[in-house]
């Protein structure tokens, strides 16, 4: 079943003026439930515009956005329900922490959903666990924490709403490699258990390659490519043309192919690359 479907969606900013900009143009996409979807594209390709559409934060100028087959704007008054089901984590979410303690901040979402104290507590503890927040930090003020810890707390605040679809815009930007692995690893574990859908928007081709089941490449507001990581990375040249970078490992295999040494070009992770090379070097 598809968690989210976009049918012929366009978003036009400043329509009818001289600076009219089509941020998205006739986009058709469907995201299957229980999957990790990676969205990549250059700066200004429409990634963040797309993210804001998914939970009804902005409205499409044309077309329909569907959640489990239902138009999310069918009853505009009930859009809040959509926002509980589709959790959106913005870029640099740590700037949005506002409560006195981490516990209060993380419980803000579930509280607004009208849950009981007991349920709220359970939600907060579960979210904190998967986001790698220590129990002893929950009573601390967000201002006492490092950037990485704040990022975790901000993501936990959305996870605590237990959404069906979790949309993360650059969740790991500005974190060191170990921190990246920890945050995304925890979220993937949570997602798997919950069988929810996770949409990761990132500039990091290496991260997208590593975590996604399905990849969408946006270019100038249009869907440029979509498919499994193997399908996407075997079309390396087209990715390069869309101002995107390839994982270093993919570049190596393209070079090896050029030299007539290897012929696989759909290599995108270190482990897979190692297996391929071992056969070659044996």
């Amino acid at each position: 079943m598809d968690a989210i479907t976009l049918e012929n969606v366009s978003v036009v900013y400043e329509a009818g003026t001289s600076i009219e900009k089509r941020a998205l143009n006739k986009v058709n996409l469907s995201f299957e439930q229980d999957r990790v979807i990676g969205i990549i594209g250059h700066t200004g390709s429409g990634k963040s515009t797309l993210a804001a559409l998914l939970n009804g934060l902005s409205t499409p100028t044309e077309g329909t956005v569907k959640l489990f087959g239902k138009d999310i704007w069918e009853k505009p008054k009930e859009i809040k329900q959509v926002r509980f089901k589709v959790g959106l984590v913005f870029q640099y979410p740590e700037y949005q922490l506002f409560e006195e303690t981490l516990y209060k901040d993380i419980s803000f979402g579930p509280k607004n959903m009208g849950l009981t104290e007991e349920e709220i507590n359970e939600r907060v503890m579960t979210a904190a666990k998967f986001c790698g927040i220590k129990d002893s930090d929950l009573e601390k003020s967000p201002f006492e924490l490092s950037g990485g810890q704040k990022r975790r707390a901000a993501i936990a605040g959305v996870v605590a709403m237990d959404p069906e679809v979790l949309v993360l815009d650059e969740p790991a930007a500005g974190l060191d490699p170990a921190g990246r692995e920890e945050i995304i690893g925890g979220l993937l574990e949570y997602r798997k258990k919950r069988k929810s859908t996770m949409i990761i928007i990132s500039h990091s081709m290496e991260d997208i390659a590593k975590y996604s089941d399905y990849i969408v490449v946006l270019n100038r507001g249009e869907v440029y490519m979509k498919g499994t990581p193997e399908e996407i990375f075997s079309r390396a040249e087209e990715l390069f043309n869309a101002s995107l970078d390839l994982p270093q490992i993919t570049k190596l295999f393209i070079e090896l192919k050029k030299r007539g040494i290897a012929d696989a070009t759909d290599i995108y992770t270190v482990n897979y690359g190692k297996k391929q090379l071992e056969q070659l070097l044996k």
Partner: protein
Amino acid sequence: MPFIEIKDLVFAYDEGGRKIFDGFNLNIEKGSYTAIIGHNGSGKSTLAKLFCGILLPDEGEVKVNGMSTADEEKLYEIRKSCGMIFQNPDNQLVASVVEEDVAFAPENLGIPPKEIREIVDKTLKTVGMEEYKLHATHKLSGGQKQRVAIAGVLAMMPECIIFDEATAMLDPQGRREIAKTMRELNRDKGITVVTITHYMNEAVEADRVVVLNEGRLFLDGTPREVFSKGEELRSVGLATPQITELFDLLRADGYNLEDGILHTMDAADEIEAYLGRKNSAK
């Protein structure tokens, strides 16, 4: 001759609090291109702020171009010679129109209008934003804003530029462009470049890589020297470029491949050479 000299630096954010640096020494040579890496909380950004006198040492000394940052009378001179680019461009733009933002510093330096025009056009071209010179800054994407901020610093014609995770919000092409800009500024204009980054692929481009851990100098050397120590880097939460990781894994399995390979082309050369060696051994 060192452009930045750090001697016996001691620094804590709160009096009596945890010492971020406790007897730290580092010299940055004039005209050099240095990358500083380290996990979140290792002291990288604190160090950057100490470089240009935004923070002052509790003990010891930080000298820029022979001037101590603790000398208040020299602070203006220091900041003129040592520009800084931060991670979040929203905190750095001051004007509402791109070209006005870039002109801000030269105007304050009392440069004649005609020259300002030339400086603005030239610096915007350097960062690839000349088409946007009449655009509103708040409507640019994150990456575009960052490029304008870099142009703004370039317009001051500093002797040294410190990039504090300046590419964290850029897409791969933007990152490539900024890396290229850093290299050109260093090579063609003799500007001392210090870049603080989480992207190992970016650190590889520098002439010297300094690894910080818990306020100490953990490793210091050429990219090749530093990244050949994969095990040590991973022990402090860092990573090596994918290619280096792949070669480390293969070497651990007994394949006799060269150590410290960082780039795709070198990796392809080494694989070709390995196959040649294997065939001639037969």
